[in-house]
């Protein structure tokens, strides 16, 4: 017997630190792994998956299992262990990556996510059951095994059976069975090779140590001496797909160690890898890197069972250049970044203040100060840009959710849909990404549900069976353009007009397409003939439009009946900084979002007409538009100078194709403003979307152009009618 491991040297001692401090990292990491696995499962070419891809998928499950086991989330560890076993067989090419298999793995990923969330939320909810899914995975393994060859069959049996034996030690539970020495007979098999295969397989199982091979008379029979914790029944089960009961002889047995000591593998002569230490922590005797006193020559023992060459060959690693780049990133809590952005915002304000205060300084006397201020301005701007870029994340984060959703949805609708994504690397502010996901989901769902026809319908009109939904993102100036485009049936003018009439919306047959499509955004307006369980969620296009507008964005529909629909969503790059135009009304300064400003001009007061209902209108290039007098809206006294001018300055703002002229006293200029939330700092004010701090330290309100235009909109159709009359 070899020396025993010193007892109590840490085996029973509690960990010296609290594991929970690493939980969050594990949760994030596991979520990432699940997402990555899902992504790969959905994108892999089932028929021609390469080793690299299969290994990468395997590694995701493997990493989660390792982490879950370490941190004590045994339910996740067990489920992912099953996934890992299945994937291990796939990467060894013993199973092919069939759609069924992908389905099961996706479900398992979903369930793992649920389990993760539950642990993350402090395990307050009922634990979801994993049993059914585990059974499905096992069935996949065993089901395939009757059709695939004998060797695969036996390995599969191990994959199912071995789950517990492999996992339990990994979870530190240990096995309760004593270590037994058995003489086993395998065969007679059909061929000598088959007998060899089973023997090899048996020896490669965990907790199974071959001590000797006994001579036999027949070529197709093997006799082995083994040590194992398994019972006879377990052994038979393990090999049931490979051997009949008669083909497996258990000739004699001897219990050589109790369960406890077996865990420390003290059966000296049976240490095939000559591990000094127990099964879980050990050094190889005679291995390079050992200190001199531990460097004993390895005993070449007759019990060294592993066939040379074969096992190591399987672990040859291929280098991949296309692997994920993780190296140069760090994880930072969002609130830290928010704080950084706030501080930079303050800095921008301070800088603006200094710039304003120093404007009147004599540049000859204060040359150094002024050049310093110029540097400060440049550095501040660069710092601001860098800080903002920290929050930018690629659109792929959003797009990655779609393949899965669409796969399930297309299946539900009985449609063939292919998703094409473009511009995934386009970056968008994280806060925007979170808010745009739901509206986009709705649009894609609509495209699949209402846009794409059934395969039969498509074939009937000469289209390919497969419908295509294209999801794209691209930068366009200071904004980002996201498009959802499908090659489905398109919108029907007549249907929309008919529906509009039913709902009492005033429409005419010669309305422009653009105006007709815009009707789809009216509240409660659905183009669906039948409300299905997919679309009938009480979320209409009006909600989509509103949530996009709330982000300072806009949405447009373009469609051709029979050819498809394109929905374009335009969003600002970030919510925290905005290009604004400052205007003066009396002594007050207001900021208009520059993206809404179309033009500004001066008109003599006579050009403003007040028609019925008291709404003033102004005629601009043959078009009448409502005038909103900001001084009246906010009850600010106008300056004497403005009143004396006999002319009004109008700023035309456009929101959702509606234009309104805002009457102001003075245009002050354009600049970037740091947007401060008024609701959290003060309270909500109608027609105001936020506030900013100006260079002189005063607060200016940022106008909510959408609300102001909508307010004046009731007179919009009236104005248009007048325009047509002129």
């Amino acid at each position, binding site marked *: 017997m070899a020396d025993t491991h010193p007892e109590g040297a840490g085996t029973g001692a509690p960990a010296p630190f609290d594991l929970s401090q690493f939980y969050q990292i594990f949760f994030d990491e596991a979520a990432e792994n699940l997402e990555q696995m899902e992504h790969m499962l959905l994108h892999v070419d089932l028929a021609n998956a390469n080793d690299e891809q299969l290994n990468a998928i395997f590694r995701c499950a493997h990493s989660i299992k390792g982490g879950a086991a370490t941190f004590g989330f045994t339910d996740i560890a067990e489920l992912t262990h099953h996934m890992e076993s299945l994937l291990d067989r796939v990467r060894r090419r013993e199973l092919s990556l069939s759609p069924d298999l992908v389905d099961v793995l996706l479900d398992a990923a979903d369930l793992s996510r649920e389990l993760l969330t539950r642990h993350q939320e402090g395990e307050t909810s009922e634990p979801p059951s994993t049993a059914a899914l585990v059974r499905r995975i096992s069935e996949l393994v065993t089901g395939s095994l009757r059709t695939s060859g004998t060797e695969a069959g036996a390995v599969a049996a191990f994959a199912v059976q071995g789950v517990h034996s492999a996992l339990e030690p990994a979870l530190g539970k240990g096995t309760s069975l004593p270590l037994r020495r058995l003489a086993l007979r395998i065969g007679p098999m059909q061929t000598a090779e088959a007998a060899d295969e089973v023997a090899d397989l048996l020896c490669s199982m965990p907790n199974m140590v071959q001590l000797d091979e006994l001579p036999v008379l027949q070529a197709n029979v093997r006799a082995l001496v083994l040590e194992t914790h398994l019972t006879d029944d377990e052994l038979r089960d393990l090999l049931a797909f490979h051997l009949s009961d008669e083909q497996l002889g258990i000739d004699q047995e001897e219990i050589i160690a109790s369960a406890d000591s077996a865990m420390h593998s003290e059966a000296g002569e049976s240490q095939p890898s000559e591990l000094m230490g127990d099964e879980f922590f050990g050094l190889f005797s005679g291995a390079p890197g050992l200190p001199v006193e531990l460097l004993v020559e390895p005993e070449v023992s007759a019990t060294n069972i*592993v066939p040379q060459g074969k096992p190591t060959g399987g672990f040859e690693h291929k280098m991949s250049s296309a692997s994920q780049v993780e190296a140069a990133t760090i994880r930072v809590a969002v609130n830290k970044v928010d704080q950084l952005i706030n501080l930079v915002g303050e800095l921008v304000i301070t800088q603006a203040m200094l710039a304003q205060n120093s404007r009147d300084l004599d540049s000859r006397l204060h040359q150094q100060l002024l050049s310093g201020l110029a540097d400060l301005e440049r550095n501040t701007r660069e710092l601001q840009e860098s800080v903002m870029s920290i929050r930018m994340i690629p659109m792929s984060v959003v797009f990655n959710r779609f393949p899965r959703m669409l796969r399930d949805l297309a299946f539900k609708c009985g449609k063939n849909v292919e998703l094409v994504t473009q511009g995934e690397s386009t970056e968008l502010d994280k806060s925007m990404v979170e808010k745009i996901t739901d509206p986009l989901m709705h649009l894609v769902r609509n495209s699949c549900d209402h846009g794409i026809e059934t395969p039969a319908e498509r074939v009937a009109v000469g289209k390919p069976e497969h419908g295509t939904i294209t999801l794209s993102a691209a930068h366009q100036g200071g904004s980002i353009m996201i498009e959802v485009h499908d090659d489905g049936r398109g919108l029907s003018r007549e249907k929309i007009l008919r529906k509009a009439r039913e709902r009492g919306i005033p429409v005419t047959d010669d309305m422009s397409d653009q105006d007709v499509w815009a009707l789809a955004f009216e509240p409660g307006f659905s183009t669906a003939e039948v409300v299905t369980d997919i679309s009938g969620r009480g979320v209409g296009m009006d909600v989509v439009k509103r949530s996009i507008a709330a982000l300072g964005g806009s949405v447009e529909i373009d469609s051709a009946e029979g050819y498809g629909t394109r929905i374009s969503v335009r969003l600002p790059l970030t919510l925290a900084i905005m290009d604004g135009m400052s205007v003066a009304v009396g002594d007050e300064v207001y900021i208009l979002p520059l993206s809404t400003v179309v033009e500004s001009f001066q008109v003599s007061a006579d050009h403003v007409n007040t028609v019925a209902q008291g709404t003033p209108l102004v005629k601009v290039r043959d078009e009448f538009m409502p005038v909103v007098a900001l001084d009246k809206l906010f009850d600010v006294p106008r300056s004497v100078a403005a009143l004396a001018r006999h002319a009004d300055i109008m700023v035309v703002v456009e929101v959702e194709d509606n234009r309104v002229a805002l009457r102001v006293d003075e245009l002050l200029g354009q600049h970037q403003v740091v947007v401060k939330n008024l609701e959290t700092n003060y309270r909500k004010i109608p027609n105001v979307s936020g506030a900013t701090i100006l260079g002189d330290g005063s607060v200016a309100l940022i106008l909510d152009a959408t609300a102001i235009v909508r307010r004046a909109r009731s007179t919009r159709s009236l104005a248009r009618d007048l325009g047509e009359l002129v």
Partner: protein
Amino acid sequence: MPSILAVDDSPSMRKMVSFTLTGAGYHVVEAVDGQDALEKAEGHDIDLVLADQNMPRLDGIGLTRKLREHPKFKTTPILILTTESSEQMKQAGRAAGATGWLVKPFDPNRLIEVIQKVLR
């Protein structure tokens, strides 16, 4: 202060290993996979390598093999810390020139104990 190169593709595992080792007074260099470890091994004085087995780009056994080819790492202790506990894997590790095989989940005390044994 001895330097340990800790290699694991899992951030949480890396963090935990690193925390354990730093707490025991070692200097830790972290690497995210075998390839990264090889590159970092070039630029640092490393007294011990503690590597995961399953990693993208280059696994633990592959890393061990590469390091052993390098004269600088002929006798540096290399420990594989992995969830793999099969005899074949251990053998493969041994054949590649690993000094020892440790199975996850690891007990921090035992890990330090083993490291102290080889770094003495």
